[in-house]
């Protein structure tokens, strides 16, 4: 036990969490938690001690900005570093019944060493399975007033749905017909809620939907949180070097093996190509950062476990866009250097079996998967026609996840499909 330094401060409820309360580590009391105070600031907190004689628990509450909070959630900085760099934080003493005993200002070096969070106070990777519900939490800018510009919201919404599609593409051969539903939006600062329904189809061997659920969560977590960490490398090198990508590939192979569905021949390439597509979509989300919001958090809502609350998979800031742009440029330069950047367009139309998963009916541009035997090749697609594309087979393919046969010319880079051009 130690005596809290006695300081007075003016705004009594500033350190207290009034909304979006979330526990990250829980024992008998919350060990690590966060939420918003009445003024919209993010308050991060931890347990310090239990005073048995006077029957109270002591907690640290520290106000952090969106960027610091994002770095903490993305495991880039430790809790100790946050406290060391904070001019001050609060010691909140609460009686066992949760009523406030006392609040005092404190600095990191007022804390006796025994109570100072350790240098390795980084969030541990999640060990428990994920759920199929996701939250997009926008903070900063207009969102703090529970409103955003419709165009910004629409773009974030569509980009997120398309990013999830990347994960679905890698399990296309399994008996699922996954659909993403949007659920009512909630304030706080501004939230969009999504639910994925896997829609398992009849198959001889049951699919472990828990494994698929975890895989989708880990896939999204990698694209949001881990991929941008590796700032110096091209996207291709980042993906080839990553132990986490190897882990995702193992997860994916296990899902196929368990269901006795042949593993796609180029499962590694399939995974990496789709990760790139999802990263592009998250990059588009980060391009919306501005007037409406300054960060976009993506949280997963674990299901079926006791005492659970949303878990942030990662926070997308405007840096995401910059890092991805650099990575993609590096990749292009690498391809040129390796002399593999030779594009070739088919001279005649051929028939392709495709599923369009992202399509702009106004411009005729989108993205699709080509199916050839057990292989799936993600490509961009361009439909050239004078007719309206609203309500066309292309939008139907996207909305109903239908495979359609089209006649198109393929643009290839080396032997790799890059685009399909459909002249309708």
């Amino acid at each position, binding site marked *: 036990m130690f005596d809290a330094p006695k300081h007075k401060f003016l705004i009594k409820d500033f350190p207290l969490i009034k909304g979006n309360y979330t526990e990250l580590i829980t024992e008998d009391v919350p060990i690590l938690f966060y939420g918003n105070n009445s003024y919209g600031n993010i308050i991060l907190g931890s347990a310090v001690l239990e005073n048995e004689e006077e029957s109270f628990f002591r907690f640290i509450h520290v106000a952090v900005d969106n960027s610091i909070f994002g770095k903490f959630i993305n495991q880039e900085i430790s809790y100790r570093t946050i406290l060391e760099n904070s001019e001050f934080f609060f010691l909140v003493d609460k009686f066992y019944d949760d009523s406030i005993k006392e609040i005092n200002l404190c600095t990191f070096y007022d804390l006796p060493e025994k109570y100072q969070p350790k240098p390795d106070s980084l969030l541990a990777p999640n*060990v428990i399975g994920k759920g199929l519900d996701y939250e997009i939490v926008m903070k900063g800018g207009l969102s703090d007033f529970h409103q955003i510009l419709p165009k910004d919201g629409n773009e974030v919404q569509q980009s997120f749905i398309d990013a999830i599609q990347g994960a679905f593409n890698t399990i296309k051969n399994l008996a699922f017909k996954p659909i993403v539903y949007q659920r009512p939006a909630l304030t706080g600062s501004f939230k969009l809620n999504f639910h994925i329904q896997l829609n398992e189809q009849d198959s001889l061997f049951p699919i472990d939907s828990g494994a698929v659920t975890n895989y989708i969560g880990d896939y999204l977590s990698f694209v949001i949180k881990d991929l941008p960490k590796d700032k110096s490398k091209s996207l291709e090198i980042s993906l080839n070097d990553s132990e986490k990508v190897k882990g995702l590939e193992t997860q994916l192979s296990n899902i196929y093996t368990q269901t006795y569905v042949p593993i796609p021949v180029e499962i590694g390439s399939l995974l990496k190509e789709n990760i790139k597509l999802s990263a592009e979509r998250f990059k588009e989300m980060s391009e919306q950062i501005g007037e409406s919001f300054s960060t976009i958090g993506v949280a997963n809502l674990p299901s079926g*476990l*006791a005492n659970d609350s949303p878990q942030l998979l990662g926070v997308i800031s405007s840096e995401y866009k910059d890092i991805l742009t650099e990575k993609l440029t590096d990749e292009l330069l690498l391809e040129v250097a390796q002399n593999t950047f030779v594009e070739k367009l088919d001279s005649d139309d051929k028939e392709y079996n495709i599923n369009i998963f992202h399509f702009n009916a106004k411009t005729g541009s989108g993205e699709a998967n080509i199916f050839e035997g057990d292989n799936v090749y993600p490509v961009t697609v361009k439909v050239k026609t004078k007719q309206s594309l609203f309500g066309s087979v292309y939008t139907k393919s996207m909305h109903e996840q239908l495979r359609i046969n089209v006649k198109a010319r393929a643009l290839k880079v080396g032997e790799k499909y890059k685009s399909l051009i459909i002249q309708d």
Partner: protein
Amino acid sequence: MEFKKLHNEIEPCDCIASAAEDTTTIFVRKINEPKIRERDFRSVWELGKAGNRIDCNAKCSAKGISISNVEDRNELIKVFKNSFSFAPGFHPVMCFFKLNDGAGMVKSTPSRNNKYHVDFYKCDNFSINNLTISEYLQLESA
């Protein structure tokens, strides 16, 4: 074994419906000092921190004692070392024990940060004499 105290104030919840006796597993409870006391086995509810819990799962959880099963010792220590890094002064001792006959019942209640989490429901006559302590481990040196 009787569980009248457990269900007092939360009826008709039945906390022990899917719980079982377990006298073979080694469990851990995090405590303040390397010496177990009766107060270390007080539930959140007994401390007066029940809050506005609505459903029976939450009520039973507050009535139970948080312990963890030592299915994988190294992994469990890793879980507690992580929470220790944030709160090194909060319950820094792992107390390893087995439950004796008639101590109460346990139910697996994994949480996101601790998949080994178990709710222990004390029977009405429980005391720390119903435990066989095997080890105290200071997380600082673990």
